[in-house]
């Protein structure tokens, strides 16, 4: 089980590097299903596990010139302010309702991103479309 958890930790890191997420989407279910933590312990532990991954990821991306530190700081400060609001909403609404709302939001965002990406021409297209 420990080896499987470590392997999923590695995969979570790859996802973090590829897609700019923390890896928590993989870490939380791994901690619950593979290591048997409770949901609250998994969410807390996930945040600590994310930390070294995103710090090293930020450093690597910064070397490639892909980090806007000012924008990252502003979003991060806003996020810290939002955390308390999230806790209040989580306590006020049924968890199932919240989870489904979040799922629908993700599907809408995915459709919107895919639509944008498909509309633009590939950046590295071989030159058969030049007129």
């Amino acid at each position: 089980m420990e080896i499987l958890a470590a392997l999923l930790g590695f995969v979570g890191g790859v996802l973090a590097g590829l897609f700019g997420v923390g890896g928590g989407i993989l870490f939380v279910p791994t901690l619950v299903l593979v290591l048997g933590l409770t949901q609250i312990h998994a969410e807390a532990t996930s945040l600590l596990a994310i930390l070294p991954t995103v710090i090293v990821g930020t450093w690597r991306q910064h070397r490639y010139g892909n980090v806007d530190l000012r924008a990252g700081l502003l979003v991060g400060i806003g996020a810290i302010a939002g955390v308390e609001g999230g806790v209040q909403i989580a306590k006020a609404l049924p968890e199932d309702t919240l989870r489904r709302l979040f799922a629908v939001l993700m599907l809408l965002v995915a459709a919107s991103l895919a639509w944008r990406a498909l509309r633009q021409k590939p950046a590295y297209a071989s030159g058969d479309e030049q007129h």
Partner: protein
Amino acid sequence: MAALLLIIGVAAGVFSALFGVGGGVVIVPALVLAGIPTRSSTGTSLAAISLTAAAGAIAYSLHGDIKVGAAALLGIPGVFGVVGGVALQQRLAGRTLTLGFALVLTAVGIRLLV
């Protein structure tokens, strides 16, 4: 733009607290839709998540909810994974990256719905 970035951050923080994730699932598409190139959005998102995750981890540690051994078991391999993931990302076109991310969101969204 500064106000927009703060609003994106607040939304990401709310979702981060609700679902125990860093908030990148909200930050990356929001930055892309705000007109920032995909690769810069993912790099900037990691910087923002560093702050969110640190604040969250400190808050939870005060309640004694963190299992440090389990965090190390995932987090240390995660460091090697992210170095590989970032290197791999530089070779992919932005369009491929956006479509890949849309696919990840769709998979997670369906998983949360059922």
